[in-house]
C-alpha cells in the first residue's frame, strides 16, 4: 500500500506493478459505481424473470413480472434519502470547514424531531386541524425547530469544539462523541426510552397520484418540498453572498482567510448554524413522515447521513445530496428485500466499500485524510 505514495523508484517487476496500479485506478473509478448499481440491477432482473408476489386474490398469490416494485423501492428510497441529504449537508459543511466529524449532528437532528413534536402540542396541531391552519402551523414549527437546532449546534461548537481547535484532532472527535451521548440522554429523559408514535398530521402514507404503477405518497412530496428549496437556498447562500464567500475561503485556508480580514470564528459558528438548521428541518420532516420518534433515531440517522456525505465526497454539498439519495435507495432496497434487520449492516457494508474503493467519494476531490 505504502509503495504507491512513498517509493520514488519503480521496482524491477514494473510491469506487474503497473498493471496492479491500473487495476487499482480502474477499481477506484468504476468499482464504487458498479457496487452501487449491483443491488437495483440484480433485483430488477429477478423481478422480471422470477416475478414477485404483489398480493393475494382469492387465496392465491398474485405474481407480477414488472419493475413497479423496484420503482416503489426507489420512490421510498429517494424520499427517505431527501431526509438523509439534509442531515448529510450538515456533516459535509462542518467537515469542509474544520475537518471534524460532528458526531453529535445526528442527535441534533433528533432534538429537531422532538422540538417539532413538542411544538405541535403547543400550537394545538392535531388530526382535526384544518388544511390552512395545518400548513401555517407546520411552517411556524419548521422555522422554530430550525432556529432551535441551529442555535444548539452553535452552542455545541462554542462549548466543545472551539476550546480544542488547536489540540490534536482526536480530542474534538471525542468531545463530539461525548456530546452525542449527552444529547441522547436528554432525549431519553424527555420522551422515554421506547419509540413514541406521534399524530399522523399529513396522512403521510396516503397516495396522491400514481406514476407507472408506483403510488406517490404525501410523505414523499413533503420530503422533497422541504429539501429542494432548502438546498437551493443553501447553495445560493454559499455561492452568492459575502458570508458564503467567507465560508468557502475559511474552508480552503483558515489562516489566509484570517489574514484577509475574515472573522474565522464567526464564520465557523455560521457554518454550524446552517448545518443545525438543516438538521432541524430534517427532524420535522422525519416526524411527519415516519410518525414515530425516539431518542436513538439520531444515532442511526447520523451514521447513515455520514455515510451519505462520505459517499458523495465530503466537503461537497451537491455530493451530500447525491449521497443521501443513493443511500436512501440502498436502504429501501435492503428494507424491502432483505428485511429491515439487515439494513444497517448493508449500509455500513457500503460505507466500508466506499472507503476501500474510493475514499474521496463520487464527487469529492482528494483530501489529505482520505488520499
Amino acid at each position, binding site marked *: 500500500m505504502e509503495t504507491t505514495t512513498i517509493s520514488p523508484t519503480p521496482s524491477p517487476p514494473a510491469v506487474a506493478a503497473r498493471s496492479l496500479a491500473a487495476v487499482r485506478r480502474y477499481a477506484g473509478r468504476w468499482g464504487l459505481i458498479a457496487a452501487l448499481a449491483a443491488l437495483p440491477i440484480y433485483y430488477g432482473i429477478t423481478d422480471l424473470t422470477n416475478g414477485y408476489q404483489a398480493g393475494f386474490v382469492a387465496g392465491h398469490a398474485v405474481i407480477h413480472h414488472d419493475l413497479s416494485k423496484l420503482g416503489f423501492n426507489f420512490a421510498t428510497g429517494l424520499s427517505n434519502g431527501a431526509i438523509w441529504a439534509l442531515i448529510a449537508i450538515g456533516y459535509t459543511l462542518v467537515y469542509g470547514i474544520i475537518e471534524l466529524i460532528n458526531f453529535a449532528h445526528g442527535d441534533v437532528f433528533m432534538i429537531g424531531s422532538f422540538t417539532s413534536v413538542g411544538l405541535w402540542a403547543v400550537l394545538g396541531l392535531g388530526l382535526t386541524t384544518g388544511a390552512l391552519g395545518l400548513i401555517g402551523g407546520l411552517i411556524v414549527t419548521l422555522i422554530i425547530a430550525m432556529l432551535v437546532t441551529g442555535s444548539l449546534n452553535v452552542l455545541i461548537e462554542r462549548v466543545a469544539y472551539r476550546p480544542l481547535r488547536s489540540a490534536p484532532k*482526536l480530542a474534538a472527535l*471525542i468531545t463530539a462523541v461525548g456530546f452525542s*451521548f*449527552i444529547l441522547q440522554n436528554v432525549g431519553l429523559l424527555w420522551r422515554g426510552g421506547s419509540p413514541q408514535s406521534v399524530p399522523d398530521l399529513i396522512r403521510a402514507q396516503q397516495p396522491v397520484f400514481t406514476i407507472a404503477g408506483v403510488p406517490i405518497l404525501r410523505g414523499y412530496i413533503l420530503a422533497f418540498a422541504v429539501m429542494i428549496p432548502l438546498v437551493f437556498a443553501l447553495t445560493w447562500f454559499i455561492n452568492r453572498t459575502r458570508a458564503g464567500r467567507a465560508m468557502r475561503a475559511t474552508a480552503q485556508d483558515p489562516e489566509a482567510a484570517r489574514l484577509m480580514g475574515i472573522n474565522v470564528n464567526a464564520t465557523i459558528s455560521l457554518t454550524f448554524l446552517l448545518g443545525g438548521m438543516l438538521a432541524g428541518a430534517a427532524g420535522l420532516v422525519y416526524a411527519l413522515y415516519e410518525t414515530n420518534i425516539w431518542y436513538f433515531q439520531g444515532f442511526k440517522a447520523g451514521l447513515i447521513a455520514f455515510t451519505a456525505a462520505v459517499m458523495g465526497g465530503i466537503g461537497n454539498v451537491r455530493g451530500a445530496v447525491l449521497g443521501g439519495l443513493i443511500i436512501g435507495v440502498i436502504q429501501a432496497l435492503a428494507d424491502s428485500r432483505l428485511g429491515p434487520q*439487515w439494513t444497517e449492516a448493508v449500509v*455500513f457494508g457500503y460505507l466500508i466499500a466506499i472507503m476501500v474503493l474510493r475514499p474521496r467519494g463520487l464527487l469529492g476531490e482528494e483530501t489529505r485524510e*482520505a488520499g
Partner: protein
Amino acid sequence: MTKLRARLRGWRAAVEKRLPPWSSRAMAVALIAIGIVLPFLFSSSSAFMNATIIAVTYAVMSLGLNVVVGFAGLLDLGYVAFYALGAYSLGWLGSGFFFKAQVHALVSPVASTLPGVHLNFILILIAAALICAGAGVVIGLPTLRLRGDYIAVVTLAFGEIIAEVAVNGQSIHVGGGMTLTAGNLGISAVDSPYFPGIGSFNLLNLRPWYWLIFAVLLFVLFVNLRLRDSRLGRAWIALREDEVAAVSMGIPLVKTKLLAYAIGAAFGGMAGAFFGTYYTVVNAGQFQFGFSIFILAMVIIGGIGSIWGAVVGGLVLGYINNYIIPNVLNNLPAKFGFHFQLTAVEFGIFGFLLVIMMVLRPQGLIPERRRRLELTAGIAAEDAQLVETQGPAGGPT
C-alpha cells in the same frame, strides 16, 4: 496558574530524584500483593466484589484498546466487536450451543458428559485471542490507506456490522439445525471455568473469579509493558507521530499497523470470553456502540497511550459504572424531585466526563510521558518567556 504548575512540577521532580532506583519495582510488587489479598477484605459474594471483578475486566479491555488508540494512534470506535467475538468464542467453545458436536478437552466431569463443544477455559482464552486477532487484521486492512477520522468511521461500521450479525445470527444456519448465534435470547448455560484440583467456579464465591481475571490482567499488563519498550512499540509511536517519516525510515507500515489491531483485539477477546462465562450468558444485546465509547473513555480518562492510565481509567469507570452509580448514587435524582434513576443516563454521564476531560485535562489522569511533553510544550515556551522578561534571576529554573 502557570507558576503554580511549574512549582508543582519542580516538587515532583525533586521527590522523584530522592527515591531510590528500586522504588518503582517495590511499588509494583506491593500493588500486586495488595491485588492478591484484596478479596479477603470483602465478603466473597458482595456487590463490591462483583464490581471489582468487572472493573478489572474493563481494565484488561482498556489495555487492549490502548495498544490501538494509544500506541499506534489508530482511533478505533468499534472495539465492541472484539468483546462480542470473545464472548461468542466462549459461547461456541464452552457450552452446549453446538449440540450436534461432541468435543471435550480438560473440562469438569459434569461438562464432559454433555453434548456440545466444551473446552477448558484457558484453551478458550487462547482461542478467543486468536479469533479476535484474525478479526482485528480483517478490520484493519481497509483502514490502511486512511487516516484519522476515517479510520474511526470504518472501525465503527465494522463494530456495528458484527453487532447486527450477532443480533440476527439466529437466522444464519451453520448446518445440522444449529445457528450462528442465539440473538437476543442469548447463549445460556455456558461452562464456568474449571481447573483440575480446584474444581468449577460458582457465583456464590467470587474470589476465584477475581484471581483468574487478576492473573489475566497481570499477563496483559506484562505484555503491554514489554511491547511499549520493544522495537514494535517504538515503531507504533513513530507511525503515530509522523507516518510519512516513519515509513521513509523503513518501518513496515502494513505489518506494524495490522499487528497493533491484532494485539489490541486479542486482549479485548480475552476479556470478552471472561465476561461471557462470568455473566453466564452471551447475549447479542450486550454489544452496543455505547460500549466501544465506554472503553474509549477509559483510555482517554486514564491518559491516551499510558499503560498505567489505561488500568486506572478502566478501574475508575468500572467502579463508577458498576458500584457508585447503581449502588450509591442511583436515587440521587429522586432526592431532587426527578423521576428517573441515574443508571438510565449513565452514558450521558460518561459523555459529560469525556467532554470535561478533553476540555480541562486532555492529557488524562496519568499522562504518558511523551504526550505530556507534547501537550506542555506550549507551557514550557511560556515559562521560557517568563524567564526572559523577568531576567535570569526572577524566573523558575
